[in-house]
């Protein structure tokens, strides 16, 4: 995790210059501002000449029902994200123990599962749960069609995150615990895992961003999350670009907030740990 302020290396790149450098920076700043303003003006102009500012495209946002429907989508997104996150947490721990097991076949199986799930697109898994159980006559709700694939991916990634966390706990701690007569299980439970979680919490929170992004595939199975509800809104109102724009901004804001929280946690814990 990076801190928001300039790093020492970045700060060294531009320390106070002389009058000529200052002048050049001033010119550069003026040019950059002009270029950015021109870019913004071009975007606004494109929107304008295509009539995208017409009130008819935006009036739906004055309707509380529209916001209510988007809000319901957001609730669906969060339900799927937290469900998948919780399952990912538990299965990730199980996979981590399997991955670190002393019994070789269990370790191999865990490695195979982790590599397989991590290397496969989540969308492929979603199509799998969308199409295959139905072929065997098994009925699944759309919630689980989204949550199981998203949770699987999160489990595989978290298993590796947890493993690096366990490896980051000093070996002396484990040796001390064992020499005090703790069993392996007691050692993990009361010495290793509490420290491991402290180390990996920021990375875990950051992983939630991926989970939120993956829930957008609810669109495929018509699970009512925000992307799916956006599609429904567009079908019912005569407005396309503004609705997609608003939804995209909401996603960016949510994920930005999660990333910010992860960075804050990481700064607070004061450990520089990245997987």
């Amino acid at each position, binding site marked *: 995790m*990076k801190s928001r302020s300039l*790093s*020492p*290396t*970045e*700060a*060294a*790149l*531009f*320390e106070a*210059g002389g009058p000529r450098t200052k002048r050049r*920076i001033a010119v*550069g*700043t003026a040019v*950059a*501002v002009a270029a*950015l303003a021109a870019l913004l003006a071009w975007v606004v102009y*494109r*929107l304008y*000449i*295509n009539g*995208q500012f017409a009130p008819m495209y935006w009036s739906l946002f004055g309707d509380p029902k529209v916001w209510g429907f988007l809000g319901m989508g957001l609730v669906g997104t969060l339900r799927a994200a937290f469900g998948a996150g919780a399952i990912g947490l538990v299965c990730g721990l199980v996979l981590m123990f399997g991955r670190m097991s002393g019994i070789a076949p269990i370790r191999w199986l865990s490695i195979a599962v982790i*590599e*397989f799930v*991590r*290397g*496969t*697109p989540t*969308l*492929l898994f979603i*199509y*799998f749960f969308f*199409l*295959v159980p139905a*072929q*065997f006559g098994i009925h699944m709700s759309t919630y689980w069609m989204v949550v199981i694939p998203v949770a699987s991916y999160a489990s595989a990634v978290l298993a590796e995150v947890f493993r690096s966390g366990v490896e980051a706990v000093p070996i002396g701690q484990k040796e001390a615990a064992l020499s005090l007569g703790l069993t392996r299980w007691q050692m993990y439970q009361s010495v290793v895992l509490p420290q491991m979680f402290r180390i990996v919490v920021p990375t875990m929170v950051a992983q939630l*961003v991926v989970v*939120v*992004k*993956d829930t*957008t*595939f609810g*669109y*495929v199975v018509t699970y009512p999350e925000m*992307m799916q509800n956006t599609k429904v809104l567009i079908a019912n109102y005569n407005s*396309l*670009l503004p609705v*997609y*724009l608003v*939804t*995209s901004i909401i*996603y*960016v804001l*949510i*994920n*930005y907030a999660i*990333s910010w929280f992860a960075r804050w946690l990481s700064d607070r814990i004061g450990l520089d740990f990245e997987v």
Partner: protein
Amino acid sequence: MATHQSLWGSLVYLLAHYGWQYVSSYGVALRIGVLSFLGGVALAFVLTMLRVSPIPPLRAAISFYVEVFRNIPVLALLIFIVFALPEVGLVIDYEPSVIVTLILVASAFGCDALRSGINAIDPGQVEAARSLGLTFFDIVTSIIMPQALRTVVQPMVTLFISVIVSSSTGAMVPLAHTELTGLVNQINTKDALGIPTFFVAAMFYVCTGLVIAAFGRFLEKKVALCR
């Protein structure tokens, strides 16, 4: 197709009837992945140079760009490009749309990776370079970037794998040449072959990822810097 067949039997049937289509769809996935990665890294390079430039509005604009494209879901961005941009007269064909989407996202992640690579360089090196009279451009191109690139091998390899995996998002739009995930969906709509169709496609993705990861480890050993 009948489900009474053995798993092995349906696997053989699948490869006999769709084997070639798998290979060509895999080719499309690879093409989208490689082009997006190359474009993304090239753009990330330029963005990173601008992000560490001494011009505050440029730094702010690039930070904004990175935050937006790091945090937007790939699917939301793809749908925006495919369905919303034509509303303002920007019509991009499906496959280029997927590539543009992935370039935007990959460049944001690549920019962050390069920036961490820069931050791993001792500031004393920059000060030394400046005291030798090198300009900002010289410092960035001959001191910063060569070292930053060596330290970002691992994040770049991870990015490459994730871009190839993300090419599966192309299944959401009607591509002229279907990519791998879209092909699996098509086969299952025509011919309910079930589990093997998915397994074969997944193995293509997984093996590609493992090969790239192995190459990455080799490359990292080769260019590693001793600090």
